[in-house]
């Protein structure tokens, strides 16, 4: 924890009682570390569930009364729902409830690139079709003569006759091997609310001319789906229905993860906080550090940022419809920091940089405390400095998007590449921070952890 707080003492005290220990002093540092970690997990997934439910309410209000104001309210609810979820991603890459190979729902919650062309109409770049069909999107099929033909059944879900219900995702989702398009999760909702992130003229970007992002709760940026898609359009009802089905699944999936972290239950948490086997306990700590490093470096700095930056690839941008990627970066990095410090401050309901919803706040025993208790306070200082630098950089990224009209997809444009580009400086800060985690694992005799690749996580 960053600062000792009374609440933390209370938490520790109740922990002692819960463990039924004979000797109060016998609660190990490892046990406290794992207990805090579990508390943060439960808190952040609880907030993820409640914000997803608020999103569901907003979508249902929008369906009942499809006005501009209610569309904006739904978009805002989506943005807020991302705030705790983004922080929760630090619990990935450790074979935990969110993404274990057996039934972890992560792929259904947050996978991208989204298969948007299968969900609803999209505009195409001029390169996407040959000349005769260049202006046509995918809202019509192609007949056997090779002509685009409105009489051929529509080739996306919303505009076709396919029944929209939960069965759509049963056997067709990201968790189903690799045979399916991603058609569900946060980004499916994002696509239906915002639509494609086209230029102001509604033209498709050619990779050199992307325009501004959302500002804080300002919806004149990102995709500009027309309200009529939800009112007078032939498929308006089907769009509402799609949203309804996807958000219901989102909540179910989040609740399944939340339940695994609930206290006093026969679940993942019960095994996780059990420190009776010393070897297993050490392995758990190793896995946590591996997970923190992998999230920060392999996943965030690598797949989520470097790939998009190197290739000027908007499709690799995390939240490419809403232009909310600067928040994803912030939240992912903050989630890792939360675990390091053993703190969870809550979430930010208006994107002003302050976590104002503090109902499920946690302030506990983190790796900073653990390092200090092990006589490694210098290493703690070193890592804290690195984390602070990461925070400085991702805040610059956030400022660029919200104050300077330079969202992530503009920053990654090749012409904007420079040594001071906040995408690049954040990538480098995350790498440096991860080197600290590697050293921490070594100094704590947790073994060698590799963090460069999210697929290198423990199986």
């Amino acid at each position: 924890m960053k600062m000792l707080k009374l609440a933390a003492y209370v938490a520790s005290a109740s922990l002692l009682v819960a463990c039924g220990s004979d000797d109060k002093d016998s609660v190990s540092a490892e046990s406290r570390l794992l207990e805090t970690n579990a508390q943060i997990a439960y808190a952040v997934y609880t907030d993820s569930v409640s914000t997803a439910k608020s999103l569901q309410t907003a979508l249902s209000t929008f369906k009942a009364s499809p006005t501009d104001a209610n569309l904006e309210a739904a978009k805002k609810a989506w943005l807020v729902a991302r705030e705790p979820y983004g922080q929760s991603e630090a619990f990935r890459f450790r074979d935990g409830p969110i993404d274990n190979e057996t039934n972890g729902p992560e792929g259904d919650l947050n996978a991208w690139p989204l298969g948007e062309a299968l969900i609803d109409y999209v505009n195409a770049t001029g390169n996407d079709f040959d000349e005769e069909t260049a202006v046509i999107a995918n809202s019509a099929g192609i007949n056997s003569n090779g002509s685009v033909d409105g009489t051929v059944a529509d080739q996306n879900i919303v505009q076709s006759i396919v029944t929209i219900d939960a069965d759509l995702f049963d056997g067709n989702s990201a968790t189903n091997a690799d045979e399916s398009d991603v058609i569900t999760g946060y980004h499916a909702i994002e696509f239906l609310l915002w639509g494609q992130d086209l230029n102001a003229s509604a033209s498709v970007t050619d990779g050199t001319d992307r325009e501004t992002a959302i500002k804080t709760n300002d919806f004149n940026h990102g995709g500009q789906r027309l309200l009529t898609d939800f009112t007078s359009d032939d498929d308006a009802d089907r769009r509402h229905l799609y949203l309804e089905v996807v958000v219901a699944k989102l909540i179910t999936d989040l609740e399944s993860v939340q339940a695994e972290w609930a206290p006093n239950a026969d679940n993942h948490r019960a095994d996780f906080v059990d420190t009776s086997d010393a070897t297993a306990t050490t392995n758990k700590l190793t896995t946590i550090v591996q997970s923190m490093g992998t999230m920060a470096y392999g996943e965030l700095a690598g797949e989520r940022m470097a790939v998009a930056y190197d290739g000027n690839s908007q499709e690799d941008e995390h939240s490419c419809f809403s232009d909310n990627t600067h928040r994803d970066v912030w939240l992912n990095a903050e989630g890792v920091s939360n675990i390091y410090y053993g703190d969870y401050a809550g979430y930010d309901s208006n994107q002003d940089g302050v976590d104002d919803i503090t109902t499920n706040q946690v302030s506990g025993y983190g790796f900073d405390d653990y390092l200090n208790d092990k006589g490694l306070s210098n290493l703690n200082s070193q890592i804290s400095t690195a984390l602070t630098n990461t925070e400085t950089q991702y805040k610059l990224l956030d400022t660029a998007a919200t104050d300077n009209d330079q969202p992530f997809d503009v920053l990654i444009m090749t012409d904007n590449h420079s040594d001071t580009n906040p995408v690049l400086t954040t990538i480098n800060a995350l790498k440096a921070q991860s080197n600290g985690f590697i050293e921490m694992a070594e100094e704590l005799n947790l073994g060698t952890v590799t963090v460069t690749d999210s697929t290198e996580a423990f199986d």
Partner: protein
Amino acid sequence: MYLHSVFSKPGIARLVLLLSITILTACDKQSSSVAPAFNSSEWKPGGNTTIPTSNKIRFDLPAANLSPPLKTDFHAGKALAQQPWIKAPTATDSRDGLGPLYNARTCMACHVNGGKGSTPNNPSEELFSSLIRFSIPGENKTLGVTPHPAYGDQVQSQSTSLAHQLRHIPSAQNIAKDVKPEAYIFINWTEKNIQYPDGTNITLKSPSPVFKNLGYGEVGKNTLVSLRTAPSIHGMGLIELIPQNQLDALTDAHDKNQDGISGRTNQVWDSVKQETVPGRFGLKANKATLALTVAGAFANDLGISNPLARSQPCTDLQITCLKAATGNDENGFELNQSQLDRVIFFNQNLAPVAARNLDQKEVIAGRELFYETGCQNCHQPNFKTGPSKTLPHLANQTIWPYSDFLLHDMGKELADNRPDFTANGQEWRTPPLWGVGLRTKVNRSTALLHDGRADTIEEAILWHSGEALKAKKDFMKLKQKDRDNLILFVESI
């Protein structure tokens, strides 16, 4: 760090001791060891690129000596090989352009964790990480085969059509498939019994594909059909750097040494150089370079056009496929040159994994038997990679892939009877054996041989015939314990 943990163990000393004992014993029997003296480099099949065995054994990890700055390039390439490609159109030119016909939406969907694909044992399970090649009789200087007029030279079982994507949904059955998948493929298995001279029985199984929902007409009686399981992809950059003269030295096209083993190079078209060159990649050594292998797989397996394989995976008869949206950029590519370069770089830097147990008594005995039965005549144990300006860390490495990368007649039963460039219908390229014992740890695939028919090393050996007949027979004559030891050695390298 890793060098210390793996190579400073007392095993080496013990091994030397054991070897001496073996040799002494052998001398007592008035014979000498056939196998060459153990070389400590055998612990590191990929030389300095070798990664240690750890709790996550995979074939998609970077070479141990890849410098940290270059790891970023490796992972950028990996992301392109691993993240799903999606249906065009989308708002941007990146990441879209899947299909319209395809086998998988990512490279790693079939090369799971860098390892092999599989062939379903259950006849009602659709083929996924293996594929079928088609052609019709006739030669073709640049393609190697004459593609099937309707299906091309590869059957793509997936399409971007909504009806196919949602084929598990009843209400999607009535949507017209604007681009029909070429066929859904299932595998029927035929079993046969083999008996060892010592009376031990073993059942082998061989696959025959069944085509359902053919999208573009009958297959045709003259069509040549070949089932191929996705191979593992580690060590490719090292294989690429084996000097051609080292491979040429192993050829014996007319079996002048009369050991029953010929060994030929396939002569294949290099579309970059615009000339015929020796091939070494692909199950029939029908690919000239690693770059063309990767580019060809993108174009044909994923339907992603790129500078080295420009066309969409549609034949002239597949009109809706030809007219469907592409993900092309302004240069007409779905994967541009710099992206392709990164994926090639990723492939070049995939690390072989350290050998295991080479100091154990049974494995040492198995090693001796490997050489006694002549396995090494095709599974050429080691090479030294040549120089490289662009990949200096892969250069001048002693590597142990256990393959001569040449074509050999493997007999009628393994034959696909589908010639490819100068490879005839009974010839296959010797597959490397490095890491084969790790295959089920890498992913769940047990599949061995080109079509995944063998689940174990033993089954794979028993399918050997043709030029490998003598070696196979010698293996079969061994005592059970000796056979087990030989297999243990193969599982350890």
